[in-house]
């Protein structure tokens, strides 16, 4: 029959839930912020979609930064090839998008990591872009929000990656001293060097429902201690139980909560955004 849709077209219309295996109309799923309306499973989303969900407006900054290959690194494939493949897959030059956002009326310095690009790993570009964003925020009295999604430091950049943990952490020390708010949003998954730097440094830490967050990966821990870990180990609710995060929120509650905490802290600290100190591109 020539009226039948191809498999490709069908899969564009329907998405199967990874968790409950229900076939969901893709549009319905999208309208529900990529959360399964049947079981509540949170699909992993890329930076573009996250920004769309969080912001009323968003002006990207430092988009021109792209990675190099400081170690001339090759494992089973050259790092440069991995970069090209990742760029093709994600449409991004590296694993993060930074900019000045409007979140329900609150002007915010926002960084969103993208797991599609080499597992959201932090190399020099991620570290540099986050640091610049924080420095901009300090200058213009903006709060900072970072949405994490990362396997950790990027091995292919070796100690260059490792030291980004200090670079970003030191920038957050300055933000802290400036009395500005930093909210860290931990989304599925956040691990390693990202957890052990800006990920866990939020004045407020929000874990998205269903996110797994930790320092060491589950497999590494199992191999080290030679025992099976509980099923809910390192899940958002597990972290909440152990006092590691302030709250666990379903996706649709994140935007209003961000706007609320930003407003409350801005009001209390009296630090309001200084528009003429924003990067030129971000001034409307």
């Amino acid at each position, binding site marked *: 029959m020539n009226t039948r849709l191809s498999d490709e077209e069908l899969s564009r219309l329907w998405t199967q839930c990874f968790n409950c295996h229900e076939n969901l109309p893709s549009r319905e799923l999208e309208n529900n912020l990529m959360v399964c309306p049947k079981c509540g499973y949170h699909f992993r989303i890329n930076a573009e979609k996250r920004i769309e969900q969080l912001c009323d407006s968003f002006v990207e900054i430092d988009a021109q930064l*792209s*990675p190099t290959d*400081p170690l001339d690194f090759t494992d089973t494939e050259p790092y440069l090839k991995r970069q090209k493949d990742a760029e093709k897959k994600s449409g991004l030059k590296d694993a993060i998008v930074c900019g000045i956002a409007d979140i329900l009326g609150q002007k915010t310095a926002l960084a969103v990591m993208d797991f599609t690009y080499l597992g959201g790993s932090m190399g020099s570009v991620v570290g540099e872009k986050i640091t610049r964003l924080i420095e901009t925020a300090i200058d213009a009295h903006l709060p900072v929000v970072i949405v994490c999604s990362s396997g950790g430091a990027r091995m292919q950049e070796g100690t260059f990656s490792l030291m980004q943990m200090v670079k970003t952490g030191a920038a957050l020390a300055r933000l802290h001293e400036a009395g500005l708010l930093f909210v860290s949003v931990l989304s599925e998954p956040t691990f390693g060097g990202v957890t052990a730097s800006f990920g866990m440094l939020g004045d407020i830490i929000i874990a998205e429902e269903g996110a797994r967050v930790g320092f060491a990966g589950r497999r590494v821990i199992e191999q080290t201690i030679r025992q099976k870990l509980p099923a809910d180990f390192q899940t958002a609710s597990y972290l909440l139980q152990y006092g590691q995060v302030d709250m666990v929120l379903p996706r649709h509650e994140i935007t209003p909560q961000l706007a609320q905490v930003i407003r409350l802290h801005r009001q209390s600290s009296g630090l309001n955004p200084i528009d003429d100190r924003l990067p030129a591109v971000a001034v409307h």
Partner: protein
Amino acid sequence: MAKAAKPDKEPENEKTPVVITPLDFEKPIIAMEEKIEELVRMSIESGVDVADDIAPLRRQAEEIRGKLYQSLKPAQKLQIARHPQRPNFLELVQMMSPTVWVEMHGDRSGSDDRAIIGGIIELPKTGPVMVVGTQKGRSMKENLVHNFGMAHPEGYRKALRLFQHAEKFKMPILTLVDTPGAYPGIAGEEHGIGQAIAFNIRELARLKTPIISVVTGEGASGGALGIGVANRIYMLEHSLYTVISPEGCASILWRSAEFAAKAAEALKITADDLLSFGMIDGIIKEPQGGAHYEPSEMALSMLDIIDPAFQEMKDRSGQELTEQRYEKFRKIGAYLELVPQA
């Protein structure tokens, strides 16, 4: 004020000659040296003088040994850095400050992690210094106490308490790093190992007191950074600084830990690499073959670098020090920036 009298004897390892366990790549040269000694013994027994033949052999052996240690591969340096007889934190501290050691225990929140140890020492020129470091054990029993130098969050929080103590009394801070990484376990995750390391990084960045960090063995991953943010960073000649253990890297990227030597090469983790990247301030030369051959010589070489370095920072203001520390890490990164057309 009069300083505490030094003991008559430096605590050098004079007691019993320490037998060094050779590493596999040292075995050929050791076999050669043993042959030479055997020749000497035989000549004494038989009364035949072979001194003229022996001397050049000895020179040759020495030359080979010298070359061997100058052309070590990263995987071989890794073996030296992990040598079970490598001087550990407490030994180095004792040799650098033989008379003063005021250990400060505990995180004041219910725990005293023995993987990270700290306290006050006295250096000849600088005076009182807060020293904090990861401790590896010498025996299996000791290693169980110190958890092979792999700290839990409580260890990093104890370290932070000591850093803040140093800040209060304007005491310079010295950290000695030798860790395979923070311990990957259940309690560590539950008690926030990521948060503990991150918080130390942030707080170390804010301190106004001078900080020197020396990587004495393995400087692995975030576990090293939790005590590694400093105004000056030095590495011992055969020590390593790496984002992940070569074994861990190999098992992820090559899907087998057997490629660890390859990973060690690719990750560029030697002191020379880090110096060429501008990430460290200097390399402290080790006794031939590694620190474990002459631990006291090692400790004195460290003192020769550390003590003057603190002197140089002595007159800098707290603000200058935090700014210099910020810039030190701020400039690390390799990226391309295409300037957008105006």
